[in-house]
């Protein structure tokens, strides 16, 4: 199970990576494997204000629709149009080219509530029993 150590994770299977001006968000490998072939992605509009834990995007496979929740509060700074055109990218490279959107964070303290790669891995193990 691939979980890059330099990312933070949420209980709802998002990853977040702090970058220069904002933080990129995507779907973890675990969730991507559960969903299997992704066929459609609905991303939020840039400029939208979001709260931590709010459903802001949707990823669809043939048989299921999966909400993506904002890991931190802030404003949507940019979105990845490439995955809207070619959703398979998320299946192929969920931590790199398959990023979904970025948030300009408003509340730095929220980052401490996120899970480390280890903590997230433990959570996945616990829930599949």
């Amino acid at each position: 199970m691939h979980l890059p150590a330099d990312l933070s994770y949420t209980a709802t299977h998002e990853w977040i990576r702090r970058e220069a001006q904002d933080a990129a968000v995507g779907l973890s490998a675990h969730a991507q494997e559960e969903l299997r072939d992704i066929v459609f992605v609905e991303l939020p509009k840039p400029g939208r204000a979001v709260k931590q834990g709010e459903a802001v995007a949707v990823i669809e496979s043939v048989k299921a629709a999966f909400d993506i929740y904002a890991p931190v509060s802030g404003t949507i700074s940019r979105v990845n149009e490439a995955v809207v055109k070619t959703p398979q990218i998320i299946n192929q490279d969920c931590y790199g080219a398959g990023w979904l959107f970025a948030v300009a964070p408003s509340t730095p303290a929220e980052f401490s509530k996120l899970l480390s790669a280890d903590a997230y891995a433990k959570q996945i193990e616990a829930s599949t029993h």
Partner: protein
Amino acid sequence: MADPLIFERSVPGRRGYLLPPSDVPASNPSEVLPAEAVRPSAPPLPEVAEFDVVRHYTRLSQLNFSVDTHFYPLGSCTMKYNPKLNERIAALPGFAWLHPFQPESQVQGVLELLYELEQLLCAITGMAAFTLQPAAGAQGELTGLKIIAAYQRKKRRTRSTILIPDSAHGTNPASAALSGFTVVQLKSGPDGLIDLAELKAKLTKDVAALMLTNPNTLGLFERDIKTIAALLHERDALVYMDGANMNALLGIAQPGQMGVDLLQLNLHKTFSTPHGGGGPGAGPVGVTKALEEFLPVPRVRKAGKRFTWDERGRSSVGRVHGFYGNVGVLVRAYTYIRTLGRDGLRRASEVAIINANYLKAKVQETFPVPFDHRCMHEFVASLKSLKASGVTAMDVAKRLLDYGFYAPTVYFPLIVDEALMIEPTETESKETLDRFAQALASIAQEAKTTPEVVRRAPQRMVVDRLDEVKAAREPNLRWVPAREAVHA
């Protein structure tokens, strides 16, 4: 080799139907209508001969499974025999060729039928009044939710929550959301039924109603229904029953006596009207006396010997259908109820229940049934034991097609892992049930010894598993002539 599309059979100049010649002066549309209103060229429909049409659509029909040809053990769908007598009656010109705005003096027969049908549905369910307008179960649910909202408005309250068990059919929360309510899910108890403690915990001041199915989607009767109803009524909240599973209750028990305030029936389930490959259906909604004022209008009234449409209804939720509802379907259901009568209706539910329990006993020799009480008219088996061989419930469903059975409902209700929801109905013979149970046993054996055969199923149909990912990523929802073809 798959059949061509009708467009691929088109030959310029072919005609399938000749209209009678005009007996009035002919005009050129371009000369009598404004230029911008006239279509420059005829719609690009296929050009085929009558016989092309007959052969094409007859051959296509032969690619379908249907109740007339195959056993459909679909849970909560009640795929019973669709009597041909119903078709004969619905096609009578005296019913089929009526215009909805003909003067009442010209349509007394159909008005009488609609009136009597309402009375019969009241007698069967114990409810006080029915609307026959909703065109399907989901539209019935929507109507019911509109009535719940109207009731709140009358009481000058703004309750916005509907409680729905996690085992409910998807139309329940969809209808609730469409009606502007917030859905709060009730986690089912360990016995598969509504958990009273969970209900009490979530029964806040903001709850307008509980939507439940009885028997529920596991085929279990909600024993505590009267207690549940009392809890809701204590707070002047309402109980909506999804009547999709009414086939277990005909002449057995009445929702009106259970404390149910509103319910919808699915005439294309319990009352034998055909599914038509996806409709038409009908979803009449029954209510208690207290809610009658909110029913959609118009309603049929009887005055002496005459029947008439009554448009009055200041508190009515309004209209949900362009005219009076799916009358063609209502005629079929009326015919069915009159054919079966008191004893026939009761017998239908009795045999449906015996058939289901019998099939459950046989299926349990192969797969566990998690909620293992006596079931009503349907039960849910779990196929999670096959996971070890890498075989899923979906694979088994597809393999059943090879054995000549339409697959039961899979992955529903969501609360059972690798669920297979099975409802035989009363119109299936013991021999069919035995063969089906035998097929499941064979497939379970295949899953152990040659799992790829199951995973690659179906192998005997005109197509094998279809690329649904491609269908979703590159939507191709209509044919276009080759030179224009582009990906969506």
